[in-house]
């Protein structure tokens, strides 16, 4: 009896452990099947390949307010999709690209990645990003021109989160103090810009300048190039701007500095490094500056003045208009995510859900989805309202969206900054700067 009992006991235990092993093996097989289904790309029906509950990671950069609002959006998404867990992975802008590159190198790519136009080509051409047109994401409410901003060689590697425009920000109070009229932005030329800035500096007296140097940002060069029928980058990923245009672009800074329209070179470099809060406009020391429209909020807050958005100079005087809508950021999906469906569902929610838009407002640019954009107009702060109105004003004047900058364009910002500094300190002439700029950019995007 006793031995029998022992045997049955052992037998039961054996049976139990066998069952356990089998269960583990089955689970492993299921996981393996899921993985290979994703890797193989469509042999099995995708629904069978992906087994949720699952966990996806969403990477973004930004400030604390963005982290908080994004967490709210994630919570809202999870409430709708209880089987999907979204793990937040955020950092500030400076650390973001270091972290992303090392995660990718370590084979630990986030499933949903926030991208930016300077970097998206690098990641897309290295097969890190999935073609999102093959995923189940509704992009019908996004303007085709804006959507094209995330396409490289016909594949949709990123979907724009929202749009910004590069515009001139003016402080009417300082214009009034200086006794200068705020220019009519529908007609003004680049010459008007220089004379206006010089007049403000003269009228406003010591310590206040007409404008802050615009030469550190290639967006300004792109607008000037487009006004002349050129473009910074061609659709083939080459430099499309002439030496003459680059030289003229830098010459404007020199003209301004010479007549006091903008501060001396060393000060300019300092203001450049100080961000919106420490800028001339932000510290009430200047009447104008060129900024992205999403920076109007920060500028207004730190200046305490009612700032205005103006078209860049030369829009009516050139061959065509040069201003454009820039995708503020992109949502991208990793090419080797284990859960493309869940990732797509999440991106679709970010892009198309009114609930998400109501939380996000214009934090990722004025929403690319025009329907949810309409939906949030009533909730916008006065500053954001101003941006939305301005964007609506210029929408019809915009000819097209510039192509995605090519692989290597992440170095553009650095090159621009160096060349412009050399010009400001008069170490090289604008013509020499143009040659140097074109050589260096060609080296960066060619290699």
């Amino acid at each position: 009896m006793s031995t029998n009992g022992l045997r049955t006991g052992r037998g039961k235990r054996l049976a139990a452990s066998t069952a356990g092993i089998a269960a583990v093996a089955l689970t492993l097989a299921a996981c393996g099947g899921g993985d290979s289904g994703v890797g193989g790309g469509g042999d099995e029906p995708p629904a069978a390949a992906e087994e949720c509950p699952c966990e996806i990671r969403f990477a973004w950069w930004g400030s604390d307010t963005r982290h908080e609002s994004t967490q709210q959006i994630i919570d809202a998404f999870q409430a709708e999709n209880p089987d999907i867990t979204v793990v937040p992975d955020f950092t500030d802008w400076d650390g973001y690209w270091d972290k992303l590159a090392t995660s990718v190198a370590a084979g630990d790519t986030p499933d949903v990645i926030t991208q930016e136009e300077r970097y998206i080509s690098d990641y897309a051409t290295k097969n890190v990003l999935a073609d999102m047109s093959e995923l189940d994401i509704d992009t019908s409410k996004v303007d085709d021109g804006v959507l094209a901003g995330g396409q490289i060689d016909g594949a949709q590697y990123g979907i724009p989160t929202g749009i910004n425009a590069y515009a001139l920000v003016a402080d009417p109070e300082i214009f009034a103090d200086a006794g200068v009229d705020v220019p009519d932005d529908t007609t003004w030329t680049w010459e008007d810009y220089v004379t206006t800035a010089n007049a403000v500096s003269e009228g406003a007296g010591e310590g206040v300048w007409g404008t802050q140097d615009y030469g550190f940002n290639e967006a300004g060069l792109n607008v000037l190039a487009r006004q002349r029928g050129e473009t910074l980058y061609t659709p083939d990923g080459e430099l499309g701007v002439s030496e003459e245009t680059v030289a003229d672009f830098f010459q404007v800074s020199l003209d301004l500095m010479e007549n006091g329209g903008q501060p001396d070179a060393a000060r300019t470099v300092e203001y450049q490094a100080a961000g919106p809060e420490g800028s001339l406009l932000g510290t009430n020391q200047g009447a104008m500056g060129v900024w992205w429209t999403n920076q109007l909020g920060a500028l207004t807050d730190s200046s305490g003045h009612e700032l205005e958005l103006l078209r860049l100079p030369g829009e009516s005087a050139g061959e065509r208009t040069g201003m454009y809508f820039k995708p503020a950021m992109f949502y991208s999906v990793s090419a080797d995510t284990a859960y493309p469906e869940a990732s797509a569902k999440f991106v679709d929610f970010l892009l198309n859900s009114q609930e998400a838009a109501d939380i996000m407002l214009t934090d990722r640019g004025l929403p690319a989805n025009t329907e949810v954009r309409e939906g949030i107009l009533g909730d916008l702060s006065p500053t954001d309202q101003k941006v939305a109105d301005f964007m609506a004003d210029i929408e019809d004047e915009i000819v097209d969206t510039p192509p995605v900058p090519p692989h290597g364009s992440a170095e553009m910002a650095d090159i621009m900054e160096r060349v412009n500094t050399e010009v400001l300190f008069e170490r090289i002439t604008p013509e020499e700067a143009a040659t140097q700029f074109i050589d260096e950019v060609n080296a960066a995007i060619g290699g």
Partner: protein
Amino acid sequence: MSVIQEISRSKRTVSPRRKGDGRWALFFLAPWFVGLALITAGPMGASLYLSFTDYDLLSAPEWIGFENYSRMFDDPRFVNSLQVTFTYVFVSVPLQLAAALGLALLLDKGMRGLALYRSVYYLPSLLGGSVAIAILWRQIFGADGLVNQVLAIFGVQGQGWVSHPDYALGTLMALNVWTFGAPMVIFLAGLRQIPQMYYEAASIDGASKFRQFRAITLPLLTPIIFFNLVLQLIEAFQSFTRAFVVSGGNGGPSDSTLLYTLYLYLKGFGSLDMGYASAMAWFLLLIIGGMTVVNFLASKYWVFYDD
């Protein structure tokens, strides 16, 4: 004979226990060895391999032999970063050591509150590498910063020091000189080692204070000076945080503060050219190694050991 035998016997009896100790020692050292292998030696080996590849972090490395190394000298920014770094090292390190020695001599007088002064002057060494100090430096040497406000009292119109390409590196060197505390403490210890009797004998012979410094202090301090020099040179070649923060991360204005390690970082993480950055890291190791060897060879001619 018997004594020797006894000693050798006692040695023999001790040795098995020693062996056991060795095993225990290895056991207790194991965490350190594992750390060395995983955190130092492993990555170093990997970077040596990567230095011979074209590697952008996003796709697999591709073997290209010595191309990264040969490419360096055709790269004007690389050559510039070498110039900037050598200027930085060879100007700031001697000044820093001179400041450290000068203060050590003053503090060695045995004044009241010595411990306090020593701590106060040591403080910058602890803080100097930090981001906070680098940010403070930006403010002090800014166009409307403290330096210019002081200059304005004397009617001098100052520059935006950190944002002018001619002066920005100077502010970094000043920062390095300011962190003289660590070598100062070592100098102080060295000064305490010099026997008082030499000075007594010298003053009986009527030697002036300056003569005493030249004939006694300096020669007897040369081993300490040498030690500090080697240490500070190595550290200065690897300076990164200061340049990164003061220049806003890009070595500007117009590459005037582009220290070697900063360019290495920009290449690796900015341009995603990790192969090139790895090659730069190994080249820096060669430079520092070379400098240290030269230092040791030259030391035969000027370092005086008292024993």
